[in-house]
């Protein structure tokens, strides 16, 4: 009983500290992870086996961690090293791409193709945010897209705030469409053995439908706030410099990005795991970057990776002590065995929770819960996995603190003198999030039940 209580106390304390945002998040999860190791696995369970199973380092040395013929869960519980290694690899790749000026070039090129017309840029950047976020972390996407939006807004005299808010929303939506688009999806995919294409044909389809609907919705609700008709600038007078400083670096980074996409799309066929793809892409990026390799390595956000390690240990404590099975049984009981209610609970609870707390610890916690639900109720695990992915990915759009992309977008705009308050943000994006969640719920019901 002591182990269970300690696992819950440490987990709740970790969540409160994360939401409080007073201390760096990686300190919080690592300290909580250390406490869980001592009090849950050590004093409470007295089980070195449970601890080693949670740390899961030995898994990295198995060939199946790098190459898995057929679909299989790369990691079932504990620290999800596949996710951490994959994220590290993608971070190295993205740093290389940013260094080569890829994102600036792409955003400005698309603005030019939109003939520097604010409404067209608005729609084009929504699509761009969604597509890029399918493969690249949404923080990077928004960092560049918001900066370019502000530059264009000053030149073309339009209001960048609605554009940035729509970009944030679409980046989160795009992230839900693929396995590598948002960290919860990588954790779900690697933990439950789903491939990139599994995500594309399930969450991807729902995401595509939602994207079309949301573009239409934002177009009608926000276009009036974009520009005062008197501020219209003649596009022929626009002189925006779209140049590539180093063509060689640019072409290499584009090639590496394309290679990453191909490897991810085909990983179920090739048997290469996401951990392997992460390491391979990082290696190619570092080799190609030559003397800049060390600089790229230094720029990687290691704090986020440490955050993941601590988080997985704390969640591992809950899992090993059986607390998550109790939660699963509670959901089954509340829903009365009704599949529709059960899926609605998973979708809406995930969405509302992700609007206020980090969706990564939430999804990491919910994976063992849905596994247990599948075992006890007989409901298809994959249906719950897609529901969980959509709930956590989309729900994060609801508030300024729901997802990393929101924070980065709001901060970039604010630092340039375009404040986005909670009221401004929620007024536009809460209805959008609810619309997408309803569309997703209907899609899930129609397709899977």
């Amino acid at each position, binding site marked *: 009983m002591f182990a269970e209580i300690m696992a819950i106390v440490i987990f709740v304390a970790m969540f409160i500290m994360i*939401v409080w*945002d007073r201390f760096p998040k990686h300190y919080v999860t690592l300290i909580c992870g250390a406490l869980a190791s001592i009090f849950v696995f050590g004093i409470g369970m007295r089980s070195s086996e449970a601890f080693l199973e949670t740390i899961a380092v030995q898994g990295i040395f198995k060939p199946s961690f790098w190459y898995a013929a057929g679909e299989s869960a790369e990691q079932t519980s504990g620290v999800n090293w596949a996710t951490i290694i994959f994220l590290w690899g993608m971070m190295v790749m993205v740093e290389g791409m940013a260094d080569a000026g890829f994102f600036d070039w792409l955003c400005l090129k698309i603005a030019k193709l939109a003939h520097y017309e604010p409404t067209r840029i608005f729609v084009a950047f929504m699509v761009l945010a969604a597509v890029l976020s399918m493969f690249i972390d949404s*923080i990077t996407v928004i960092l560049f897209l918001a900066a370019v939006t502000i530059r264009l*807004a*000053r030149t073309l*005299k339009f*209001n960048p705030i609605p554009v940035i808010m729509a970009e944030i929303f679409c980046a989160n939506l795009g992230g839900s469409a693929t396995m590598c688009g948002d960290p919860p999806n990588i954790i779900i995919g690697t933990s439950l053995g789903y491939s990139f294409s599994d995500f594309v044909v399930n969450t991807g389809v729902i995401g595509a439908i939602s994207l079309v609907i949301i573009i239409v919705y934002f177009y009608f609700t926000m276009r009036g706030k974009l520009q005062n008709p008197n*501020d219209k600038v003649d596009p022929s007078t626009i002189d925006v410099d779209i140049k590539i400083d180093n063509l060689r670096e640019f072409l290499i980074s584009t090639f590496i990005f394309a290679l990453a996409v191909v490897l991810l799309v085909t990983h179920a066929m090739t048997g290469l795991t996401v951990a392997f793809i992460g390491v391979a892409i990082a290696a190619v990026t570092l080799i190609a970057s030559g003397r800049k390799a060390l600089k790229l390595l230094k720029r990687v*956000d290691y*704090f*986020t990776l440490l955050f993941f390690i601590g988080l997985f240990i704390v969640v591992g404590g809950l899992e090993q002590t059986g607390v998550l099975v109790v939660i699963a049984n509670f959901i089954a009981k509340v829903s009365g065995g009704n599949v529709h209610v059960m899926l609605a609970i998973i979708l809406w609870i995930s969405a509302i929770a992700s609007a*206020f707390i980090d969706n990564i610890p939430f999804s990491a916690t919910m994976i063992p819960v849905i596994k247990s639900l599948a075992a006890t109720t007989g409901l298809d695990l994959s249906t719950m996995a897609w529901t969980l992915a959509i709930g956590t990915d989309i729900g994060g759009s609801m*508030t*300024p*603190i729901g997802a*990393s992309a*929101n*924070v*980065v977008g*709001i*901060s*970039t*705009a*604010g*630092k*340039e*003198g*375009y*404040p*986005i*308050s*909670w009221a401004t943000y929620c007024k536009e994006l809460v209805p959008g999030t609810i619309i997408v969640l309803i569309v997703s719920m209907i899609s899930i019901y129609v397709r899977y039940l």
Partner: protein
Amino acid sequence: MGQFIISVGREYGSGGHEIATILAEKFNVPMYDRNMLDQMAERNGIDAEDLHKHEEMKHRGLVRTVRGHSSSVQDTIAELQFNFIRDKAASGESFVVVGRCAENVLRDNPALISIFVRGDEGAKVERVSRLYKLNDLEAKAKMFRHDKKRKAYHNYYSKMKWGDSRGYDFCVNSSLMGVEATAEALYEMLSKFLKEKGQL
């Protein structure tokens, strides 16, 4: 003429802002207060009030930070103002700056002279009542509200505490000689010092 930067921290009602204005006029240098946001608002084509309402304020409610980025408007506006102050200082310009944690932002800048202006409660209440046509109770409440906000803001973004003499070069009670005479005395003292240093 070398560069000098005078930062003026102040209690509400102490006349610190007026002292800063007099010093800027006498030294013939620009003064930056909330007007530092006006330039940005004009450049962005937005109402300056949209920025002013979030300035000199500690963030409120739920906030999240990601890789050094904050979701709080107050944090980003504060950062915007700190960058403005840093840029002005880096440009070599001499100026007077009111509040905005300037003495903390420029604490390593050798051109900085930091002042904190306080006042006796009675004198401050009288001044606030006169300027805003309030009764004593209302003036006191307004004063308390503003000082609480300034203190929270300053202590959140600065290393030293608001009004702590160790965080400033000069701390002065404007009620002793009156606002104008205090400004005059500070001017005399600072101009002598700056002349000796060859900065004036």
